[in-house]
C-alpha cells in the first residue's frame, strides 16, 4: 500500500472540470456571482475556460443535450425557475479554442440522432483550430421527447431500475459503432496524404486516402473523410458511465471514462468492471483513463461551503440530488478525497462546480495549489496537446502501410 502523504511516485494526476450553465446546482444561477444572462454570450465561456487554463487543468468538458433542460431525467418539464436554453457544445468549444493555448476542450456530442460523418469532421476541425487539444464526450439519448425533435425514429423510454436493458443496450451498441466510424474517418487520411507534387501535378496521394467501408446495423459509411487527419491523429473520446452497459462503451471505445463512485471502495469496484470490459474488447494494453466525477461546493472555510450549499438547497426547495458524489468543504479536504481516489486506482477526477464561477475559482486557486504543495499536480503545462497532457502517445494510423 502506498503512502497517501507521499504520492509523488504515482502516475500524474488528471483534473478535469465539467462546465454547464451556472453550475451543477439547479439554483446556482441565483448566486450573487452567477451571470445568468450571459450563458449565450461567448465571453462567459471564454472566461470560464481561461480560468480552467490558469489552474493548469487537463481539460474542460462542455455539457450538451438536444432537449431543453429538465428537472426530470426522463422527460421535459415546464419549470420556469431554472436555467433553460443551451448552445451547441462543439461550437462553444470551437469559439473558445483560439483564445486558449493549453487546456483540453471536450464538448458533448449526442450520437443517437446525429451523423458520425458530421461529428468526425467537426471534432477533427476542433482539433485543427485548437492545435491538438480536442476531444469529444459521446452521449446517447434515450428520451422520447428528444427523438421527437428529429422525427426520424422512436426510442423506447428507458426506466432506471428496469429489468429490461434491451433498449439501452441497443443505443450503446449504436454509440460504439458511431465511435468506430468516427475513429476510422480520422484515420482515413494518412498524415502525409497531401503531397503537393508539382512534378506529377498531384495535390494528394490517393494511395494514402482510405475508404472506411463501415457496415453496421444502424448505418453504413463509405468514407474517406473530407477533413485531413487532425493534429492528434485521434482526438480524445470520452464517455460518462454509471452502469455496466456504459462501462462497456468506455472499455470498447473510449480513451477517457467519467464514472460516479460513492467512495474509494466503489471506485475500485467500478474500475475493475471497466478494466474487465477493456480486456474483453481486446484493449487491455491501451491506456484508458478513468476519472471520478464529484459535484463540489468549496470555500476556504468548510462552514461557509456548507452554508452556501444549504442556501441553494433552500432556494431549490429540497436537498440536491446527483448521480455523482456531492462534496461540500474546503479545497484541502477535497484534495484528500482526490488523492484517496487516486490511491484507489482512478486517474483523477472530473469536478462539477456546484456554482460558476465560484467553485471553478475555488478549484483553480484553492485545490490546485493544495495539490501542488503535496507534489501531486503539475506546476506548468508539460505538453501542447490534450493527448500529451493525458500521457497518451499520438497513435499510428490504422490504414498506414507498416
Amino acid at each position, binding site marked *: 500500500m502506498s503512502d497517501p502523504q507521499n504520492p509523488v511516485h504515482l502516475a500524474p494526476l488528471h483534473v478535469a472540470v465539467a462546465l454547464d450553465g451556472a453550475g451543477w446546482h439547479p*439554483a446556482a*444561477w*441565483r*448566486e450573487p456571482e*452567477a451571470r*445568468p444572462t450571459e450563458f*449565450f*454570450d*461567448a465571453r462567459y465561456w471564454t472566461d470560464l475556460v481561461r480560468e480552467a487554463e490558469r489552474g493548469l487543468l487537463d481539460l474542460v468538458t462542455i455539457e450538451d443535450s*438536444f*432537449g*431543453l433542460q429538465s428537472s426530470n431525467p426522463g422527460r*421535459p418539464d*415546464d*419549470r*420556469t425557475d431554472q*436555467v*433553460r*436554453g*443551451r*448552445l*451547441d457544445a*462543439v*461550437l*462553444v468549444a*470551437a*469559439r473558445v479554442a*483560439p483564445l486558449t493555448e493549453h487546456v483540453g476542450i471536450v464538448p458533448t456530442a449526442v450520437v443517437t*440522432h446525429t*451523423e458520425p*460523418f458530421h461529428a468526425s*469532421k*467537426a471534432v*477533427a*476541425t*476542433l482539433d*485543427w*483550430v485548437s492545435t491538438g487539444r480536442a476531444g469529444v464526450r459521446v452521449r446517447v439519448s434515450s428520451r422520447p421527447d428528444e427523438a*421527437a*425533435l*428529429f*422525427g*426520424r425514429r422512436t426510442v423506447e423510454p428507458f426506466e432506471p431500475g428496469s429489468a429490461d436493458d434491451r433498449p439501452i443496450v441497443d443505443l450503446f451498441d449504436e454509440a460504439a459503432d458511431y465511435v468506430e466510424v468516427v475513429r476510422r474517418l480520422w484515420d482515413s*487520411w494518412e498524415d502525409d496524404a497531401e503531397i*503537393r507534387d*508539382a512534378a506529377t501535378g*498531384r*495535390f*494528394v496521394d*490517393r494511395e494514402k*486516402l482510405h475508404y472506411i467501408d463501415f457496415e453496421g446495423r*444502424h*448505418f*453504413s*459509411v*463509405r468514407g*474517406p473523410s*473530407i*477533413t*485531413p487527419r487532425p493534429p492528434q491523429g485521434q482526438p480524445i473520446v470520452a464517455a460518462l458511465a454509471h452502469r455496466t452497459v456504459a462501462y462497456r462503451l468506455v472499455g470498447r471505445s473510449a480513451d477517457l471514462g467519467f464514472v460516479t463512485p460513492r467512495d474509494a471502495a466503489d471506485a475500485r469496484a467500478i474500475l475493475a468492471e471497466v478494466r474487465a470490459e477493456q480486456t474483453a474488447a481486446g484493449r487491455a494494453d491501451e491506456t484508458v483513463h478513468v476519472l471520478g466525477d464529484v459535484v463540489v461546493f468549496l470555500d476556504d472555510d468548510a462552514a461557509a461551503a456548507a452554508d452556501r450549499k444549504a442556501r441553494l438547497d433552500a432556494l431549490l426547495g429540497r436537498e440536491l440530488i446527483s448521480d455523482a458524489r456531492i462534496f461540500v468543504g474546503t479545497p484541502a479536504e477535497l484534495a484528500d478525497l482526490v488523492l484517496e481516489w487516486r490511491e484507489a486506482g482512478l486517474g483523477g477526477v472530473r469536478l462539477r462546480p456546484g456554482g460558476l464561477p465560484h467553485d471553478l475559482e475555488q478549484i483553480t486557486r484553492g485545490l490546485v495549489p493544495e495539490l501542488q504543495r503535496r507534489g501531486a499536480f503539475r506546476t506548468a503545462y508539460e505538453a501542447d496537446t490534450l493527448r500529451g497532457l493525458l500521457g497518451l502517445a499520438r497513435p499510428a494510423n490504422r490504414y498506414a502501410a507498416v
Partner: protein
Amino acid sequence: MAKKQIHLAAHFPGVNNTTVWSDPAAGSHIDFRSFVHFAQTAERAKFDFLFLAEGLRLREQNGQIYDLDVVGRPDTMTVLAALAAVTERLGLAGTINSTFNEPYEIARQFASLDHLSAGRAAWNVVTSWDEFTGENFRRGGFLPQEKRYLRAKEFLAATWALFDSWRGDEIVADKESGVFLADPDAGRFDVSSDQFDIRGRFSVPRSPQTRPVILQAGDSEEGREFAASSADAIFTRHGTLDAGREFYADVKGRLAKYGRSPDDLKILPAATFVLGDSDAEAQEKADVIRHQQVSGQTAIKFLEQLWNRDLSDHDPDGPLPEVDPLVGENTVARGRASVRMYRDPIATARQWRELAEAKHLSTRELIIEVTGRQSFVGTPEKVADALDEFVQADASDGFVLVPHLTPGGLDEFADTVVPLLQERGSFRTEYEGTTLRDHLGLGDARPPADAIPGVRS
C-alpha cells in the same frame, strides 16, 4: 445623390480546381492560421462576410479519388465558430446541405453560431440528392431527385419555425424572484410537412439576428424562385454586364409576389480578379494563373467530364478527340461538376470543336478558354472602375471574390482596390453596424413564415 454601395464577400479558397496550390506563396488550406489570415484581411477591408463552401464526399473520376486539385477541408460550422473568436464584425457564412442534415440540429448550430458571433451568421442553403454522397450518411441516397427542392423548402420552413419559437424576451433571470423564464412555453414548436414531422421545444433562445442571413446559390428557375421567396442574397456566375443586368432584373422582379422589395435580396456574382501594375502585366499574370490552374492532366480530366469516357491517353496539346461524348447514366466523374451539368453533351462537344478550330486551340487551351471566369483583370484602378460600373449599372449588388491563393489571395485587393472603391464613395470605410444584416442593409429578419402550411411555432 449617394452612390449605390457595393457589397463584398470573400470565398475562402477551399476544395476546387482554381486554387493554385503549386505557387510558392500557397499556404495550408487546413491550418487554422490560414483561415485567421484570410478572415482578418477581409475584416480589415470591411467586407460584409467570409464564405465557406461544403463538400461531403471526396470527388472521384474513373473510379478513383480525384488527386489533381486542392482536396480536404475543415467542418464548416466549427471553423466559422472559431473564426468568430478572431474577428469582430465580419459576417460568417457557411454552406450547409439540407439533404444530409436535420432541421433541429442545423437550426441549433446556426442559432448557436449567431449567439457566439454576436449576430454574424449566414447560411447558404444547398441541396443534394445523389447516392454517391449519401453513402456517407444514415439517410443514404434514398431521396428522389425531384424531392430535393421540396425538402429544401420544408427544411428552411422548419428551421424558421425553430428560430421563431423564442420571441426574445423570455429570459428574465431574476435572482430575487427566482424566475428564469417568463414563459413556460418558450421554444415550443410543431412542424408537420411532407418531409418533416417534428415537435418539442427548441433549446437555443432567440439569437441576435433572430435568423441567420439566408444565402442561395443557383441559376435555375427553381433556384431563382427559392431565392426570391426565401433568401437574403443570391450567388450567381454572371460575368458580363449584359448577362448580369438581365439576371438582376429578372430576380428582383420576382420579389414583389412574395411581398418583398428589391432591396431585400442582394445579388452577388462570384468574381475572380488578377491585379498588376499595368493592364498588360495583369493580363500576363492572368494567363500564367490559368495555365497553373489547368495543367495538361487537369485539362484531360475536364474533358472526360463532358466526354464521359476515359481519355487518359489523349494528348492535351493536340486537338479535341474525334469520338463523340458518351451519353448515359453512368458518369466517370462523381461528386463534382460532371457530365450532368451539360444538358446536351453532343451539342456542347460540337460547339467546343468549332471554337477550337476557329481559334486554333489545343485541348488544354480550349479547356482554359471554356472554363475561364477571370472576371476582372487589370490595374487596381481598372478593376475598381469595372466593379463599380457593374454595381452602378444594376448588374449586381456586389461580388463574392474568389482568390486563387490561400491564404494571402485577398491581401493585394484589400490594399489596393478597396481604398479606390472607398475614394469613389462606393464602399464603406467603416462598418456602420455590428450584425451581418446591418452590413447587408437588410433590416430585421422577415416576419414568421406563417403562410407555410403545417408549420407552427
